[in-house]
């Protein structure tokens, strides 16, 4: 691999240095102020639209469903834009290359914890799963540590976080992040114990370190904005559909029906929810409003969380891609361990919440 240069050439695009130095702070402060102002105005605006402009009668099924739909759509999209943009800006400082360097030479245990943490802030799109996975393993990072990263990166992601924050609040979103990290640590440790290294295709490529240049802020903010727009375009329709279905459930589905089937007293609710969630990957963003409506109608919180973790954490497309480099036995172990952990978390949260 000596022919390829390891050094990316520096570029000099963007604003002059002096000008771009204060840009991040100015943008953050203006953004936060605008966010707070708009956020506070959402509820009165939704009320005014529903009950004054469109003249729906308050305290009726239809009126409340319409009001819920308007308020929640506006709130979620505002949160999505703000958080995705902010998270993308921060995430640009964490590349898979840097993660690999940070994890190099780390033992299992501490390595799993670090990998799970770094996974939260380091994005990779599912089509990068192969080079990432092989690149980690071939550079000597233990299999279990690699899996910790592979589990936590998609499981704890900004869209899931925003949706939970907007629809369930800070406590549930926090629980989700902690549960996601614990899943990544435990799952990686378990896979590491099982000595499945032979289940990985060997490519024998020498790991290379590519140095990445610092991209000026103006360009990074533009990239973050493009990314935000692209992501919104992708998840937006699902969110809108999810909120509409959620609004219908809020308005029309009777409480005791949901509570009887998905409440705490049905011991089958958690595993059934996790199994239903397995093939639902692309609809993750749209699932939260529906889950929130079901929760409001009596579905147990642990069941809701287990369901959501399974939607986000086990994705069919990623499995199909990983099949190129991981043998079926290890893939099955990977899916089995995650399913088991999600079900356990479901029961645990149902017991303590």
């Amino acid at each position: 691999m000596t022919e390829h240069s390891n050094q990316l050439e520096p570029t000099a695009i963007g604003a002059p240095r002096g000008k771009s130095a204060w840009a991040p702070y100015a943008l953050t402060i203006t953004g936060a102020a605008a966010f707070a102002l708009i956020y506070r105005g959402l509820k009165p605006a939704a009320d005014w639209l529903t009950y004054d402009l469109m003249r729906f009668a308050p305290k009726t099924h239809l009126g409340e469903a319409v009001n819920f739909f308007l308020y929640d759509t506006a709130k979620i999209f505002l949160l999505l834009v703000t958080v995705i943009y902010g998270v993308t800006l921060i995430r640009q400082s964490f590349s898979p290359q840097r993660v690999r360097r940070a994890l190099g030479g780390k033992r299992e245990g501490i390595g799993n914890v670090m990998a799970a943490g770094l996974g939260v802030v380091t994005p990779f799109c599912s089509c990068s799963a192969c080079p990432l996975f092989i690149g980690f393993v071939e550079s000597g990072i233990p299999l279990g540590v690699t899996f910790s990263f592979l589990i936590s990166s998609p499981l704890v992601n900004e869209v899931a976080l925003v949706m939970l924050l907007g629809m369930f609040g800070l406590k549930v979103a926090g629980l989700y992040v902690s549960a996601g990290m614990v899943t990544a640590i435990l799952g990686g440790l378990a896979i590491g114990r099982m000595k499945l290294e032979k289940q990985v295709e060997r490519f024998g490529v020498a790991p290379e370190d590519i140095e990445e240049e610092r991209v000026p802020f103006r360009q990074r903010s533009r990239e973050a904005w493009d990314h935000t727009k692209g992501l919104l375009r992708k998840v937006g329709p699902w969110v809108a559909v999810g909120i509409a279905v959620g609004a219908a459930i809020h308005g029309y589905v009777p409480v005791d029906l949901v509570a009887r089937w998905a409440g705490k007293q049905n011991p089958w609710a958690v595993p059934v929810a996790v199994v239903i969630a397995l093939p639902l990957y692309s609809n993750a963003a749209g699932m939260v409003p529906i889950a929130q409506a079901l929760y409001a109608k009596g579905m147990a919180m642990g069941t809701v969380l287990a369901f959501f973790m399974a939607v986000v954490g086990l994705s069919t497309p990623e499995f199909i891609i990983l099949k190129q480099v991981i043998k079926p036995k290890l893939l099955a172990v990977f899916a089995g361990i995650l399913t088991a952990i999600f079900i356990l978390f479901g029961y645990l949260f149902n017991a303590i919440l």
Partner: protein
Amino acid sequence: MKIEVLGSGCKKCHALEEQTRAALAELGVEAEVEHVTDMRRIMGYGVLSTPALVIDGKVKCAGRLPAADELKKWLQA
């Protein structure tokens, strides 16, 4: 000039290929553009995330879509 777009064929990789071709056409630069999907070759460049752009054997960027002017600068050099 030989340009390789590395990526297993997701939306972003196609976007990078299109943007590269568009930039080449705009600049009037002749170049051979190849979309590499073979995992072994992708990893041979030491790339951990796709899409990645390789110009004459040099990795220019990985895991992101470069801005149009950044792309043009590499293609003109």
